[in-house]
């Protein structure tokens, strides 16, 4: 392993590592635009210059070189703090800024722009441009979700390298020479692939911006919470960027009757960004996950417990709905426990499934529990990230055992069983019953109870009583992805209205049915889960690191 000196201190690095990574590992940040650890190194921005001294033909010779292209070699000496290096970096930055439009007030990237940050850290020069700046194309629509601004581009080619090396779709390329050089779509192409949103994260400046996030909120208002995507079995690591202020202001101006339009965005989640996890999703997420957060604050969100009173849904207190659930379930169980079917969606966290399992299987001993919802036929997986299974926690359901026992009925048998009259009570958690039941069997059911996040208008006629469940971003827990990796997700903000996480409703329901579940928070459920389910043995929130833990037979 080569030993090199960085700013006078000797360190050891593995063979083949470049100097930029080596400096980063010892805590010295070298500014760079084009270098990205997961992409090919091109060395086009010239920002990462350092002073390299090497033994050449018997004497130490030093030169200024770009650190991303220099590999560590024994006896090398690196300096990042000499005046010459600083001057070189400043000059590079001055060149990059010479035609930059400086429209930071309207740029969505302002606040997390590397050009801005480096100017404050390494530049601080006055502009010497006398010539007019070169004008170029602005706000150019290049795809379903991406806007290109050629004036702001620093030609780092990260986006085109991503589209060449990761997605292999080759939509963007660099055309022209000299000052006319610019990034553009290849003839006939449009940036419409499933991973197009990643070029926005890769862009170090505001050249590629997101249409969904366009002008929505300045980045310095956002608060970030680490989470796990719930749109497929991969379990990509994401960051929820949220801000409650527009939401509160909307309510306020609404109350004051001063609002004119409904233009104010009620979304509390402003955007989704990927987190680096080399074992799961590297640093990429698909567009389904990136723009799939909108159901959290959509118009059909159920925020209050509702009960059906003579054909009409009325918002009531949670206690009344729990009471309706309890009397309905109790009377069905008293006649025959086989008459009740409980269907949960594999979108639930491990803790919620375990709470539901403890109540319905362990305490009430119901045979007909299932989670195997049919997969949406429009959903297709791919070989990069998207899994063929659109549910984040199917493996967790199987491991915990939320499946029909011996002679119990699964989801696919329900239609027949209902038409035969074998089942007359249905409780679904987070699942739309029309996904697996026909209309006539749904209307044949005697009692239909739901725990739902969203209540669409056309489902309302089928609801007897419904409890509002916390949506993604409002609860914490763990998901088990398709390879048995357990990862944590955190709650970004409190649930909307009277909504509660499913495990909370399970505890309330258990209390109503005089079957006590003595948990207060998700940690307690995790503790109990690790005691009772073999695959989760010795697991706690503290032992699940930022990369997650692989458990089970796949570990």
């Amino acid at each position, binding site marked *: 392993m080569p030993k090199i000196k960085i700013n006078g201190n000797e360190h050891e690095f593995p063979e083949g590592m470049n100097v930029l990574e080596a400096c980063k590992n010892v805590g010295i940040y070298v500014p760079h635009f084009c270098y990205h650890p997961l992409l090919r190194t091109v060395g086009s921005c010239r920002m990462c210059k350092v002073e390299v001294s090497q033994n050449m033909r018997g004497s130490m010779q030093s030169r200024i070189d770009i650190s991303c292209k220099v590999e560590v070699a024994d006896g090398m000496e690196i300096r990042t703090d000499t005046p010459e290096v600083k001057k070189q970096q400043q000059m590079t930055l001055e060149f990059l800024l010479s035609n930059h439009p400086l*429209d*930071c*007030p*309207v740029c969505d990237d302002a606040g997390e722009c590397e050009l801005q940050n480096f100017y404050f850290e390494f530049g601080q020069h006055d502009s010497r441009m006398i010539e007019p700046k070169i004008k170029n194309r*602005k*706000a150019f629509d290049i795809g379903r979700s991406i806007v290109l601004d050629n004036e702001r581009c620093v030609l780092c080619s990260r986006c085109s390298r991503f589209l060449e090396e990761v997605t292999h779709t080759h939509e963007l390329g660099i055309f022209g020479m000299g000052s006319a050089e610019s990034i553009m779509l290849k003839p006939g192409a449009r940036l419409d692939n499933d991973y197009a949103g990643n070029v926005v994260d890769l862009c170090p400046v505001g050249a590629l911006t997101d249409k969904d996030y*366009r*002008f*929505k909120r*300045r980045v*310095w*208002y956002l608060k970030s919470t680490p989470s796990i995507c719930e749109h497929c079995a991969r379990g990509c690591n994401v960051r929820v960027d949220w801000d409650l*202020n*527009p939401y509160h*202001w909307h309510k*306020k*101006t609404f109350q*004051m009757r*001063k*609002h*004119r*339009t409904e*233009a*104010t*965005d009620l979304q509390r989640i402003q955007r989704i960004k990927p987190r680096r996890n080399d074992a799961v999703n590297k640093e990429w997420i698909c567009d389904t996950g990136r723009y799939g957060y909108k159901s959290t604050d959509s118009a059909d969100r159920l925020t209050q417990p509702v009960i059906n009173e003579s054909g009409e849904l009325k918002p009531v207190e949670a206690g009344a709905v729990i009471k309706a659930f309890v009397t309905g379930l109790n009377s069905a169980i008293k006649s025959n426990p086989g008459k009740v079917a409980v269907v949960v969606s594999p979108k639930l966290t491990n803790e919620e499934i375990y709470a539901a399992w403890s109540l319905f299987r362990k305490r009430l001993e119901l045979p007909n529990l299932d989670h195997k919802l049919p997969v949406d036929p429009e959903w297709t997986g791919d070989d990069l990230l998207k899994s063929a299974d659109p549910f984040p926690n199917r493996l967790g359901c199987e491991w915990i055992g939320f499946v029909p026992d011996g002679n119990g009925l699964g989801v696919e048998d329900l239609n027949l069983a209902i038409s035969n009259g074998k089942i007359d009570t249905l409780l679904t958690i987070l699942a739309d019953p029309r996904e697996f039941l026909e209309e006539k069997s749904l209307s044949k059911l005697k009692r239909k109870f739901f725990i739902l996040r969203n209540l669409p208008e056309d489902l309302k006629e089928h609801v007897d009583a419904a409890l509002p469940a916390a949506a993604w971003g409002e609860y914490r827990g763990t998901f088990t992805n398709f390879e048995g990796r357990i990862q944590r997700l955190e709650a970004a903000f409190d649930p909307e209205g009277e909504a509660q996480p499913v495990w909370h409703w399970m505890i309330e329901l258990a209390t109503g049915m005089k079957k006590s579940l003595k948990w207060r928070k998700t940690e307690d459920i995790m503790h109990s889960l690790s005691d009772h389910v073999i695959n989760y043995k010795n697991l706690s929130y503290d032992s699940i690191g930022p990369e997650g833990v692989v458990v089970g037979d796949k570990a």
Partner: protein
Amino acid sequence: MEKRVRELKVDYGPAENIYWVEVLKGLWITNRHFMVNMWRHILHALRIKAEKGAVTFQYPEEHRPIHHRWRGRHRLTVKQNGAMRCTACMMCETICPDECIHIVPGESPDPNVEKFPEEFYVDALRCCFCGLCAEACPLDAIRLDVIEPEICGFTRDIIFNKEFLMGLNNDRPWEEWYIENKTDSKEK
């Protein structure tokens, strides 16, 4: 209960006892001011003398001169072609210590302008009139120079919206007004 009031006995000397001399002096000053001001008012009313008699301002009819650094109600300035100057960069919303500004940015109707505030609210009940928003603005789009002493005189409904801050009709959307009054800046 314990007696807590202590009585102090002060002996007034002869100098304090003949206080009526000072009373007469005071009355003399009051009278002099009254007579002088009355004559000045009369002369001012007859337009013989230019300056006013006293420093009192007869408020609703007569306003005090306002200092050029006065910070009053907010105003959104407009460009020569009548469009808003504001580009919704959120600097004012960021710096506002009372969080009284709320901007909803959007795509501008003008193709030469990228971003503009679709809605601009100022909650004057929260505002402390510190003027930091005007200072932070890179485009001189917000000013606190409307001379309006009674901001919330007869109503408590004082979340100002964009049209009000631009001095337009409150019920009429700014976009409508802009399209009607639009003059191309190149023609001017």
